[in-house]
């Protein structure tokens, strides 16, 4: 009896949540059909890029609490991997998505393993340094690979043979939002697994986590590796959309903006990332009307947002919803 009523409550809660999710998904799907303005669709596409990058940083910063202010560096690795392999060997960019992810992940593993023991702000400056090292190296055109300040251009559109070529704004919009949809499902599942919990334990209290049998070093590295892989995917899409990659897309300022996305939304909160990314990508466009005042207003808005919602616009809700739903699904699958 007890269990039943609990389940029912959880179900009720879930249906309410589900309705909201369905509305969001439908509005995202219908958006380009209703708004037939390529500029707005492109703004929504770059909102998607920031969402994907925000989700990837959210793993490192939000879930594990590691200060990473060089995250754009990982995206740069992914973008340049795609650009170089596509332009020199003509490998299709869709094939290069996993390649970019793996390249960024391997890079993150190699760079982060010696520094993963650093605490808080010390880790922060090391990630800043890492991001700057990547950017400066790309700028200096090592081995004639990266094209220096000009970057690499002539990257192809994503395509499956001649069946489907993603070349218009609308197609790019669906392309990125479908990838985000899949990513969100995977990330929610990770959040509700022992891995997601282990990340949170590390964020909450490192020593208690270790004493509870959590391999802190492993989980910190895992977060960096997965975060970097996801950023690498975002870099790939970014490169194919702009058809050019150049170092000024991966500056320290961009990494700072990603940091803000996670904090504006709320640490470790997936819906929060959407809100943060929306703020970061829409505000500068809305403020276009103010010409050279636009970044000034943007800065002020950032301060004001933190004044009113210091914990983030949509902090992660803990409690029944996630644990209950798992058990219900587990029971269903057993039946």
């Amino acid at each position, binding site marked *: 009896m007890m269990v039943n009523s609990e389940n029912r409550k959880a179900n009720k809660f879930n249906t309410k949540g589900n309705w909201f999710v369905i509305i969001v998904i439908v509005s995202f799907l219908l958006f380009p059909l209703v708004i037939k303005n390529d500029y707005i669709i492109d703004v929504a596409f770059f909102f998607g890029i920031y969402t994907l990058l925000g989700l990837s940083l959210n793993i490192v910063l939000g879930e594990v609490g590691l200060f990473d202010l060089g995250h754009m560096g990982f995206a740069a690795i992914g973008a340049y991997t795609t650009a170089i392999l596509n332009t020199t060997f003509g490998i299709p960019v869709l094939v290069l998505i996993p390649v970019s992810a793996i390249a960024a992940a391997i890079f993150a593993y190699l760079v982060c393993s010696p520094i993963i023991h*650093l605490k808080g702000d*010390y880790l922060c400056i090391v990630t800043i*340094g890492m991001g700057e*090292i990547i950017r400066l190296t790309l700028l*200096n055109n090592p081995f004639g690979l990266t094209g220096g300040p000009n970057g690499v251009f002539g990257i192809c559109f994503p395509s499956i043979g001649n069946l489907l070529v993603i070349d218009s704004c609308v197609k790019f919009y669906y392309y990125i939002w479908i990838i985000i949809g899949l990513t969100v499902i995977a990330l929610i599942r990770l959040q509700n697994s022992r891995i997601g919990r282990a990340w949170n334990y590390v964020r909450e209290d490192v020593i208690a986590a270790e004493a509870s049998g959590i391999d802190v070093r492993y989980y910190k590295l895992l977060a960096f590796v997965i975060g970097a892989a996801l950023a690498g995917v975002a870099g790939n899409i970014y490169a194919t959309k702009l058809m050019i990659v150049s170092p000024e897309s991966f500056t320290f300022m961009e990494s700072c903006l990603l940091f803000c996305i996670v904090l504006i939304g709320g640490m470790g909160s997936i819906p929060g990332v959407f809100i943060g990314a929306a703020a970061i990508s829409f505000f500068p466009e809305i403020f276009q009307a103010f010409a050279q005042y636009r970044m000034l207003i943007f800065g002020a808005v*950032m301060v004001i947002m933190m004044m009113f919602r210091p914990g983030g616009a949509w902090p992660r809700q803990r409690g029944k919803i996630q644990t209950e739903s798992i058990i219900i699904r587990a029971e269903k699958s057993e039946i």
Partner: protein
Amino acid sequence: MKLIVEQLLNGLTIGSFYSLIALGYSMVYGVMKLINFAHGDFFTFGSYLGYTLLVMGTAFATSTLGVWGGMIAAMLVAAIGSGTLGILVERIAYRPIYPTGRLPAVVSALGASIFIQNSIMVIWGARPHAYTSEVVPDYIMNIFGLRINLLQIIILALSFFLMGVLYYVIQKTTFGAAIRASALDRETAALMGINIKLIIFFIFALGPALGGTAGVMVGIYYRKISFIMGWNYGLKAFTATILGGIGNIHGAMIGGLILGVLEMLGSTYVSTAYKDVFVFLVLILVLIFRPTGILGEKIAEKV
């Protein structure tokens, strides 16, 4: 030999600018545990204030006060202006936020930084400005075959003097002891009757004031100032702070000087283009082996 001496001197000069800015980062971090990303922009603001007084008000400043008096007046104005701005930013952008944790304050600090930087652009215009030669003349001397700018020596001496004064205040006076106590444990310090509000006021006035002074020095020495330079200097000074060990005063001073010299060595002996790569690599290597910086104390976490 001549080359090395010249480069060391240049490295120390730029390093002393980093140190002065780094002190602001370090003091604020020590007490508030907050990375004040807007700090580099206080530096730019000071530089522009000094420019306004010296260049736009040349008739007044240099004629009534003389060349040297004008420069000192510019530094004072910059220090007071940046200090005031620092207090304002603390009141508006940080104070309402830091009770809820240090991370939201980072976003607020970034927002403040973007705001100040773009305000400077709107007020003074986007084009870079220059401290003109009427107000900051060169005095080039020839010592043992070395060409040395007198201004460089004076700037070095002045920044060492400022650092010395700050060191004395923090390490030897009762007020300094109060600051250090607040840095160790803010709650306990407050219970012991230390006026935390006064301390915060002081560090948010003094840090930017030092930064603003450094801004004028940069203008006097290099002449060119631009509204985005705070970002670059701020990042370097933050690196210096961490390199020395954040939260302690001598760490910031030493860190800045080491960073300045490293930059010069890197660009002389490694590569000009890869200079910053070299600097960050050294920083990372130092942190791998000394996780809390060169002079940082080992943090033994209480279990």
